[in-house]
C-alpha cells in the first residue's frame, strides 16, 4: 500500500556542535533557568524586490502578537538581543561542520557565505536565522543501501520557547545562537521504520566525529513528507528517534485522508469549495453546547461558516485519528483559538437538532453544505474565520504545503504555511570565509573511523555481542569502558552491561538515569573487582547510593553487604542442606536449584553466586555419599 501511495521522506538532522561558544558570539552554550532581564519586540515581514511577501511571514505577522525575550548574562549578550552585530563565525564551529561534511563525502564549498533565512515566528530576535552551506552532496550506507546527502549546513539554533498567550510569545535567549550542523538527506522511499534506521545511523556517524554535543535535546529531526499527488509537508522538531516512524506513519495516513477527500470531491464534481460566514451568536445564545456556552459566557461571539460540498467530509475518518475537521481546528489553534466545531460532530458537541436546523436555515445550507462554528473572543474569531475558510477551500487540492510540528505522541499539528523560496539573502554583517586546501587536507587526516568499524573492533577486542558493542558505542562511554576493562580484570561483557544496561534498568525501577552517572558506576565496578561486594548486589547498591545520596562504599556498608568469607558461605550452605535433608533424599541432584535459591536468599549481595554454587555442589556430594567435607569435586 505504501509503495502505491508513493511515500517519500526527506530527513533533516540538526545536531548541536560541541564547541565552547555560540556560533556568532563568545557566550557559552549553557542552559539558564533564571532570567534577570527581558524586552519585547514585534517582527514584521520584509518585502522582496518583486513586492512579494513570504506567506509564512505574513501568517505570523497577522497574529498580531509581540515577542517577549528573557535573558541572562550567563548565556546571552547583546548579539542575541539583536542589539549588536554578530561577531565573526566561530572557527571551531566551522571546522566541526566541515569535518561532518568530510565524513559524509560532501563537496566542501570553497567559500562559505552566511545567509539570513527569514523566520518571523519570534524564535529569532532578528527575524532571521543565520545559516551557511558548507558542503554539497555526499552519501553513506545503511544496511547495504546508499542514502544520498543533499547538503551540510552550519546554522545557529533558535530561541527556546517558554510559553505563549494571546498577546505574546515568550522566549529564552540561552539557546539562541548555539551552533548546529544540519544534514539534509535525499528523500527516501519505503517503510517508516527505514527512516528511523537512517536517522540512527546518521546520528552515530555524527557522533563518530567527536565534535557533536551529547544528551537530550542536542539532536533534532525535521522531516519532509509527501505522497504521490500531494505537496511536501515539513514536520519540525522530532526530538526522539523512536518517534520518527510514528510521525511518518501519522503523516502518511493524514495525507492519504486529505487526498481521499479531494478524490471524493472530484467524484462529486466539486472543484471549488466556496465559503460564507455570519455571526450566529444570537441564534445560539441559549445553546447547551460547551464550546458555544463558554465563548458566550466570556462575552465572546460565535460565527458560522458554510462550506459548500464538504458535508460528511469533515468527520470522515478513513484511518483512526485523521479527519479534515481536525485540520480546520488546528488552523484555529495555531492562532490561539480553541473553539471550532463542525456539523459532522454537532450532536456529539451538544448541539440539538433544532439548533442545527436553525443554523442550516440561517446559512441557507443544503445537504451538501458543511457548517463550521468558530467561537471565542470577537477579535480572535474575526481573525481566524478567514483562515479556516481558506483551509476549507483548499480541500479539493488535497495536501496543502504546510509546516507542522511533531507532538510528543508521534502525531503532527499545524504550525503555519510553508515558507516560500524568497526568504534567504546574504548576511552582510559577516565576511565570506575561504576554506583553504590546507584545512581540507587536515580534516581528511582527522576524519574518524566509520562507526561500523568502531563497533566491530569493540566486538572483536572484548568479545562482546553486537548488541552490547552497539550499546557501548551509542552510550559514548567507549573510552571509559576500554579503560575499565584493562584496569579491573573483570569480564568485559559484565563491565559493558553495568555501564550501558544497568542505568536503564534502574530507571525502570524509579531511579532517574541521571542519578546513576559514570562516577558511581565506576566505583561499583571497582568494589566488585576488589572483592568488596558481589556482582549481584550492584543494582541494590547503586539504588541505595542514588536514593540516599551516599557514596557506593557507604551504600555497601549501610546495606550490610560486605563480602563474607568462604567459611561463612560453607556454613550457610551446610545449614540449608541440613534443613532440607528430605528434599535432598527425594530429589537427589535435582534438589540443587531449590537449595541454591534458598541459599542465595541469605547470601545475595554478600557472596558471589558462583562460589555459593560450588560450595553447594560440594555439600550435596557430601550429603549424598557421606564422604564428608574433604571431598574434592567442586562441580
Amino acid at each position, binding site marked *: 500500500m505504501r509503495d502505491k501511495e508513493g511515500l517519500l521522506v526527506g530527513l533533516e538532522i540538526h545536531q548541536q556542535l560541541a564547541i565552547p561558544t555560540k556560533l556568532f558570539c563568545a557566550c557559552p552554550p549553557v542552559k539558564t533557568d533564571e532570567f534577570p532581564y527581558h*524586552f*519585547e*519586540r*514585534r*517582527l*514584521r*515581514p*520584509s*518585502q*522582496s*524586490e*518583486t*513586492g512579494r511577501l513570504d506567506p509564512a*511571514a505574513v501568517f505570523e505577522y497577522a497574529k498580531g502578537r*509581540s515577542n517577549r525575550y528573557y535573558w541572562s548574562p550567563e548565556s546571552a549578550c*547583546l548579539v542575541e*538581543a*539583536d*542589539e*549588536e*552585530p554578530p561577531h565573526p563565525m566561530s572557527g571551531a564551529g566551522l571546522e566541526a561542520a566541515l569535518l561532518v561534511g568530510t565524513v559524509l563525502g560532501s*563537496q566542501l*564549498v*570553497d*567559500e*562559505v*557565505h552566511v*545567509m*539570513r*533565512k*527569514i523566520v*518571523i515566528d519570534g524564535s529569532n*530576535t*532578528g*527575524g*532571521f536565522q543565520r*545559516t*551557511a*552551506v558548507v558542503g*554539497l*552532496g555526499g552519501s553513506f550506507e545503511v544496511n547495504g543501501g546508499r542514502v544520498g546527502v543533499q*547538503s551540510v*549546513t552550519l546554522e545557529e539554533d533558535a530561541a527556546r520557547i517558554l510559553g505563549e498567550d494571546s498577546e505574546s510569545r515568550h522566549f529564552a535567549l540561552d539557546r539562541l545562537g548555539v551552533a548546529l550542523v544540519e544534514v539534509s538527506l535525499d528523500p527516501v522511499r519505503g517503510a517508516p521504520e527505514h527512516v528511523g534506521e537512517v536517522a540512527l545511523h546518521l546520528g552515530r556517524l555524527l557522533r563518530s566525529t567527536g565534535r557533536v554535543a551529547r544528551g537530550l535535546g542536542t539532536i533534532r529531526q525535521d522531516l519532509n513528507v509527501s505522497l504521490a499527488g500531494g505537496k511536501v509537508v515539513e514536520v519540525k522538531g522530532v526530538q526522539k528517534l523512536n518517534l520518527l516512524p510514528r510521525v511518518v506513519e501519522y503523516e502518511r495516513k493524514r495525507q492519504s485522508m486529505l487526498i481521499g477527500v479531494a478524490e471524493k470531491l472530484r467524484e462529486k464534481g466539486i472543484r471549488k469549495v466556496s465559503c460564507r460566514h455570519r455571526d450566529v451568536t444570537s441564534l445560539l445564545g441559549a445553546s447547551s453546547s460547551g464550546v458555544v456556552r463558554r465563548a458566550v459566557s466570556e462575552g465572546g461571539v460565535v460565527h458560522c461558516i458554510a462550506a459548500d460540498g464538504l458535508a460528511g467530509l469533515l468527520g470522515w475518518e478513513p484511518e483512526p485519528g485523521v479527519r479534515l475537521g481536525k485540520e480546520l481546528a488546528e488552523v484555529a489553534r495555531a492562532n490561539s483559538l480553541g473553539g471550532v466545531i463542525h456539523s459532522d460532530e454537532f450532536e456529539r458537541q451538544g448541539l440539538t437538532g433544532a439548533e442545527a436546523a436553525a443554523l442550516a436555515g440561517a446559512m441557507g445550507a443544503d445537504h451538501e453544505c458543511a457548517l463550521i462554528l468558530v467561537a471565542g473572543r470577537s477579535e480572535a474569531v474575526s481573525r481566524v474565520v478567514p483562515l479556516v475558510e481558506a483551509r476549507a477551500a483548499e480541500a479539493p487540492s488535497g495536501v496543502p504545503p504546510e509546516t507542522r510540528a511533531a507532538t510528543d505522541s508521534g502525531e503532527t499539528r499545524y504550525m503555519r504555511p510553508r515558507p516560500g*523560496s*524568497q*526568504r*534567504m*539573502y*546574504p548576511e*552582510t554583517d559577516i565576511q*565570506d570565509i*575561504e576554506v583553504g586546501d590546507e584545512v581540507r587536507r587536515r580534516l581528511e587526516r582527522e576524519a574518524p573511523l566509520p562507526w561500523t568499524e568502531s563497533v566491530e573492533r569493540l566486538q572483536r577486542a572484548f568479545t562482546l555481542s553486537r548488541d552490547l558493542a552497539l550499546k557501548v558505542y551509542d552510550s559514548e562511554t567507549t573510552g571509559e569502558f576500554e579503560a575499565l576493562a584493562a584496569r579491573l580484570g573483570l569480564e568485559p561483557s559484565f563491565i559493558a552491561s553495568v555501564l550501558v544496561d544497568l542505568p536503564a534498568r534502574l530507571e525502570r525501577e524509579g531511579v532517574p538515569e541521571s542519578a546513576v552517572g559514570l562516577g558511581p558506576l565506576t566505583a561499583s565496578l571497582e568494589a566488585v573487582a576488589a572483592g568488596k561486594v558481589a556482582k549481584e548486589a550492584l543494582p541494590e547498591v547503586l539504588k541505595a547510593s542514588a536514593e540516599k545520596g551516599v557514596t557506593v562504599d557507604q551504600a555497601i556498608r549501610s546495606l550490610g553487604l560486605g563480602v563474607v568469607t568462604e567459611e561463612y558461605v560453607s556454613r550457610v550452605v551446610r545449614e540449608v542442606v541440613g534443613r532440607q535433608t528430605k528434599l535432598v533424599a527425594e530429589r537427589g541432584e535435582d534438589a540443587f536449584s531449590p537449595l541454591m535459591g534458598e541459599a542465595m536468599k541469605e547470601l545475595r549481595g554478600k557472596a558471589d553466586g558462583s562460589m555459593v554454587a560450588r560450595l553447594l555442589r560440594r555439600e550435596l556430594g557430601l550429603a549424598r555419599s557421606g564422604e564428608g567435607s574433604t571431598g574434592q569435586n567442586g562441580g
Partner: protein
Amino acid sequence: MGDLSGYKGGALRLLRDAGASIGDVIEIRTDFGTVTGTLVPRYLYGDGEHVVLKLKSGYNVGLGLSGLAKAKVLSKGEKPSFSPPASPRAAKGLPRVLILGTGGTIASRVDYRTGAVSPAVTAAELDSLVPELSEIAKVQPELLFEVFSENMTPQHWTRLAKRAAKAVGEKFDGVVITHGTDTLGYSAAALSFALAGIPIPVILVGSQRSSDRPSSDAPLNLVAAVTVAAEGSFSGVYVAMHLGESDDKVAFHGGTRVRKNHTSRRDAFSSIGVPLAAVFGRSGLEHVAEGLPARGGSFKPRPKFDGRVALLKFYPSMPGGLVRAARRSGVKAIVIEGTGLGHVSREVSSELGRFVKAGGLAFMTSQCINGRVDLSVYDTGRDLLHVGVQPLEDMLSETALVKAMWVLGTGASGSKARELMASNVAGEITARTFPG
C-alpha cells in the same frame, strides 16, 4: 557584455567566456560534479578566484576556480519586476507630512535573488512597507540626496534646512527627515540653529537595525516621527529613536542636546543634561516636556554654515603643534574638548592663545559629556580665560562645533561671534544643571 559586477581576474574571464551575467542560471562543472545556481554579484573586496552561486534552496556558495572546469549559461536571468503596491488610500482631512530622504534606508526592499537592498522612494512603496503611516498622515516622500551619514557636510545641512523651511510655505504640518544614525546628532544641531523658531515640528529619525530585517527599529521610529510631525502640539527640531530595547516607546530628544552614546543598541541616543522632549508609546504621545515651543509664529531660516571650524580633543601629551596645524589649514575657530571642568596642558593653552591673538576663535567644552565647564576654579582655567579661550557652559562638543560653523555662516566675527556663541539660540545652553 552582461553585468558581472564585482567579478575580476580569473573568475571574470571564466564568466565572460561563458557569456554569463548576474542573475543568469548557470551550471558549473567542478572536480566533484555539477553545481547549478543563479549567478550573484561579488562584493567589492572579494577576490578574483571564486564564483558565487545562489542555489535553488536559496543558499549562496562560493566555488573556487581551481576546481572549476567550465561554466555554462542554462537560462538568462530576468530582471525582477517590481509590481508597485496599490497607492495609499486617499485620506481626506489628514495632516500633511513631508518625508525627506538623505540616504539612510529607513524603509527598503530586499532582492532575494542578488541580496541587494533598495530604499522605498515613493509614497506607495513606503505605504506598502509601513502601512500604518497612511492612517496617520498624508505623507509625501522626497529623496533629497543619497549619502552615508559620515559623508554629510555643512552643504548638506544647508540643503536640508532650505527644503524644510520651504515646507512651511507649502503648508506641510510637519517634516520628517530620515538619516543615518552616525552623524544624526550633528545634523539635528545644525537644523536646530538654521531653523530656530520654525513654526512646525521637524523630526530627524534613524534606525540602528537596517530596515531590510524583520526586527528593524525603523518602522516604529518612523511611525512615531510621522505622528509627532503630523499632530504634535509643539514645534522645533527633534530626534526620534527607541527609548529602550523594546519596541514599545520612542524618545524625542531636543536637537541640540542629543548624542549617540552606544555603537549598536536601539536606544543609543540620549538627551544630555535635559529631560526628554517627548515620549511616544502604544497609546500615542504619552509625555510632552513642559516649555516646548508651540506651533506657529513667523520665522526666518538662517541656513548657511562655514565649515572652517575644528573640534580637537585634548589628551595628555597632546603636542601644541596640532593647534598650529589646525590654524595653518585655514580654520577660523577651534572648539577644544578639555578635560574635567575644561582644562588643557600649558603647551596647548599657549598655542590656543597664539591662535586667538592671530584672530581665531577658541571655545572650550568638556570631554566629560555631562556637566558644565568652569574656567574660574583652577589656575589652568584662569590662564585659558586670560589667553582668550571662551568657555561654552554645558554645550555638547559636537553641538558647539556645529554652532561655530553656523555662527561663522551668519557672517558674524570677533566679539559679535563670541556673543552669539554665548547666547542660547536653540536650547543648546541650559542655565541650571540638574542631577542625573
